[in-house]
């Protein structure tokens, strides 16, 4: 684990390497979920790694390292997604990995439909939803990562759920 005392200089490459190795798998999953692409997630994670290494000296508290990397990854993935949307390269189909044999067709269909509905949400609603339900981040962490007030985040989560409820009313009956 990281053992650097708080408030000391964090310019050591070894400390960053330690932090990066600990957080890289989580950041890769986060990039996959936010961007919706496995191929892009590799590039995005690498990009985040390079930028984080350059800006690591600006980090004041080592405890906030994971949150700092999360924020950077979310913003990078969202920017990538925006570029794809602008260039009409985003085909709207989410990543659909080959699931286990025990998963029934019905469940797979429901999950695919939900994915498509979530993907159709505006970014302001989609990102908090993904970070909260898929990534398991707390509301405070998400608000910090997206740089929005907690109340705004909660109202966005509520709005996202409302839209999903409206569009999936048949399946919720």
């Amino acid at each position: 684990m990281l053992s650097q005392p708080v408030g000391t200089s964090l310019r050591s490459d070894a400390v960053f390497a330690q932090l990066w190795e600990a957080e890289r798998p989580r950041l890769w999953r986060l990039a996959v979920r936010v961007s919706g692409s496995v191929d892009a997630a590799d590039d995005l994670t690498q990009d985040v790694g390079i930028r984080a290494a350059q800006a690591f000296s600006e980090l004041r508290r080592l405890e906030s390292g994971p949150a700092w990397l999360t924020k950077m990854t979310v913003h990078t993935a969202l920017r990538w997604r925006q570029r794809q949307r602008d260039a009409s390269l985003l085909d709207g189909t989410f990543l659909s990995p080959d699931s286990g044999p025990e998963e029934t067709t019905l469940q797979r269909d429901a999950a695919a439909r939900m994915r498509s509905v979530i993907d159709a949400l505006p970014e302001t609603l989609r990102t908090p939803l993904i970070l909260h339900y898929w990534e398991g981040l707390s509301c405070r962490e998400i608000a910090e990562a997206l740089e929005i007030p907690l109340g705004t985040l909660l109202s966005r989560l509520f709005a996202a759920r409302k839209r999903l409820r409206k569009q999936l009313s048949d399946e919720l009956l």
Partner: protein
Amino acid sequence: MNFFKREHRLTELIRTADPLEGLECLEGEGTLAIPSPLKRAMRGLALPLMALVFVGIWWVASPKTSVVREKSHIIIKKSDVSFIKSEVGQKNPDIAREKSHVAIKKSHIVRRKPSLSRRKSWVGVRKLRVARAKRHITQEKPKILPPENRDSGEMIVVAVRPITPDELRQELQTP
């Protein structure tokens, strides 16, 4: 489906729509893989096991249990004291006998009190009996009957005989 069930179902649906649900990132690689069933089972068991261990540790180390233990010790001590007392009591049977005598006397005093009330009630009963006897006497008194008419002194004997048809005819013909 009620509100809470619907909301729960929605949350479940959102969670199952996660593209990385049930998949894990291979260490050092940017690829996905389905974890082995054993690993998944272990993951599922880890949390309950940890909770169980935590509860066990808490139970052993919590101040409440120590308080309970102390209380039980106190109870045991109290029972010891009462046992000793009873032993002491057994050694002094004379005192106990005297006490029992006193109790018997007291009970006699208590018993005397109702005898008074019994006497009172006996007086009441006697009064009742007297009243009943008086009533009986008044009921048995002979009634004063009207005097019989015994002046004529004649006895009327009536013989009844069936009437013959001829006699009946004669009776009818006579004016």
